[in-house]
């Protein structure tokens, strides 16, 4: 329990310190906060591994009076992935967004925003109360919108405003579902809701919450806000936005569909969600293919990569939850969340290095950069392996598990999605890779500190290593899995 609470409050304390302290103490305080939170997140993981899911009733008040938190395998795993991305982003931002490079405004604002985002993500990963999740989502939204706008450029402001528009619309839809749920059942606790008597308005509540969360997750056709927002931010902020922020709303979606109201899932709705996911894979991939700027390619690829995760609904939900393949599909989807987080952060941080080196992320300007910056080129290539789903990366494990589940359940059509998506990803990642590794060079890059260059490389390597060591995380992710789905084991 101590681990869980430290993991929640440390980023908050660090953010408050970063706001209040004078400028010379700000960076040390922020980095100290990052370090301590990483320790707390590892501690929490060990605790979950040793003793199973950790549950806390805040203030000693059990639901429905109070709010319960529960760190299960899924929440703790996302917490560790978040910690890894945050460390990497902090190390990159130390170079890229330091006050003397980026000005006092960004030097002041980035750290508290990053730490508050972290605190909000952690809070969402373990929250068991639908309204508390709403508050957490709003904190994520406001910090994420600020991070989009932080560069101050006109395009960034417009992208941030459009993002806020969509995100607030999503929040209100979700809130409408929360209101209906409380009005009908007098509780918002996920575990208590799972045991409720179904009311006629529940389907509407579930539909509203789902629609809101889909907007926030940028699932096709609600994705239009994502690419401009993610590409307009400075690279470390983009890494946070693309790798972590959509995972929070996605996690809530999983919690609602698999834990709070699993009995409302019908084959039709599950297929509809997965179909939107499949369309996202195709549409995101095609648009990524058409872009000529690296950050936009990477941002559209987020639209595509998030699409895979929605295959989990027909493969592991509803009636299928008790089937043997459900565990595989569920774990595959979470693997995809983890692998995409690490790889996408690595790609954006690599893009940040390129922009710092040559002042542009146009593919034409990036030709031959691998010669001067080999580590970054290698990092981008490794991250690409994960996104493509090639063995031995975690992206491969994720797709393998989902395809196996699709065949085992006789829903073989869904297996086409990872297969086709992999081909599209190969096509849209080939262009930046061929530019970076071209023999001729377009521009002479400025030197980049060695320590900065290793950051994306380590992240990308981790995204591959996760696949090599997949048996440990596989077992970990089963901890505290929704009972209905666990029966299949």
């Amino acid at each position, binding site marked *: 329990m101590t681990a869980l609470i430290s993991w929640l409050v440390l980023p908050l304390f660090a953010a408050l310190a970063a706001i209040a302290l004078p400028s010379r103490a700000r960076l040390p305080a922020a980095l100290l906060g990052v370090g301590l939170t990483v320790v707390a997140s590892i501690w929490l993981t060990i605790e979950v591994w040793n003793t199973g899911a950790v549950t806390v009733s805040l203030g000693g008040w059990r639901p429905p009076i109070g709010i319960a938190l529960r760190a299960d395998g899924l929440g703790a795993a996302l917490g560790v992935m978040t910690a890894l991305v945050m460390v990497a982003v902090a190390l990159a931002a130390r170079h890229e967004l330091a006050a003397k490079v980026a000005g006092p405004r960004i030097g002041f604002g980035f750290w508290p925003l990053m730490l508050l985002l972290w605190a909000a993500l952690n809070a969402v990963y373990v929250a068991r109360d639908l309204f508390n999740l709403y508050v957490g989502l709003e904190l994520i*939204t*406001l910090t994420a919108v600020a991070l989009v706008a932080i560069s101050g450029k*006109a395009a960034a402001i417009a992208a941030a405003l459009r993002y*806020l*528009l969509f995100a607030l*619309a999503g*929040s*209100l839809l979700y809130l409408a579902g929360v209101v209906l749920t*409380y*009005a009908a059942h007098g509780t918002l606790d996920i575990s208590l809701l799972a045991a409720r008597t179904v009311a006629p308005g529940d389907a509407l509540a579930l539909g509203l919450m789902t629609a809101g969360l889909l907007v926030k997750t940028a699932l096709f056709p609600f994705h239009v806000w994502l690419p401009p927002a993610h590409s307009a931010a400075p690279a470390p902020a983009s890494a946070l936005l693309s790798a972590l922020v959509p995972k929070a709303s996605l996690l809530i979606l999983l919690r609602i569909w698999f834990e709070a109201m699993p009995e409302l899932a019908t084959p039709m709705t599950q297929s509809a969600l997965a179909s939107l996911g499949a369309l996202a894979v195709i549409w995101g991939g095609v648009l990524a293919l058409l872009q000529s700027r690296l950050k936009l390619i990477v941002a559209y690829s987020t639209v595509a990569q998030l699409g895979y995760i929605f295959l989990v609904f027909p493969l592991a939900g509803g009636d299928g939850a008790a089937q043997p393949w459900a565990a595989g599909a569920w774990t595959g989807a979470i693997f995809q969340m983890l692998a995409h987080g690490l790889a996408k952060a690595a790609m954006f941080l690599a893009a940040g290095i390129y922009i710092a080196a040559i002042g542009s992320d146009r593919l034409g300007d990036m030709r031959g950069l691998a010669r001067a910056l080999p580590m970054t080129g290698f990092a981008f290539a490794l991250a690409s392996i994960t996104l493509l789903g090639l063995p031995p990366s975690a992206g491969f494990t994720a797709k393998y598990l989902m395809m196996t589940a699709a065949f085992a359940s006789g829903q073989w059509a869904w297996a086409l999605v990872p297969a086709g998506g992999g081909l599209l990803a190969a096509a849209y990642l080939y262009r930046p890779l061929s530019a970076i590794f071209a023999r001729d060079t377009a521009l002479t890059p400025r030197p980049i500190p060695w320590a900065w260059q290793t950051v994306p490389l380590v992240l990308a390597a981790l995204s591959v290593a996760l696949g090599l060591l997949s048996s440990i995380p596989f077992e970990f992710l089963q901890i505290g899995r929704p009972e209905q789905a666990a029966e299949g084991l």
Partner: protein
Amino acid sequence: MNLTVFALTGAALVGLGVYGLIARVHMLRRIMAFNLIGSGLFLFFGAAGARGVGLDPIPQALIITGIVVALSASALAVGLVVALARSSGTACLPDEAGDT
């Protein structure tokens, strides 16, 4: 009966807000539309929380939290609209400014 009046008013306000959110392109008006939706939902919630014996304080607390959250979001949104107008001379999003 009185509660039904408030709940249906809340539902209608949500509808009005949704219309404003989609149909209006000036961002200040969209911010107001957001607040209409939010307050309509809260009115519905408040009416629902008043149905039982005595008033349920939990919806009231959640509504107060929601009102503060809505204010925070509105403040940031208003700041973004002013910044947008400063950098691009319009308070509408780029691809919508021309279509009215």
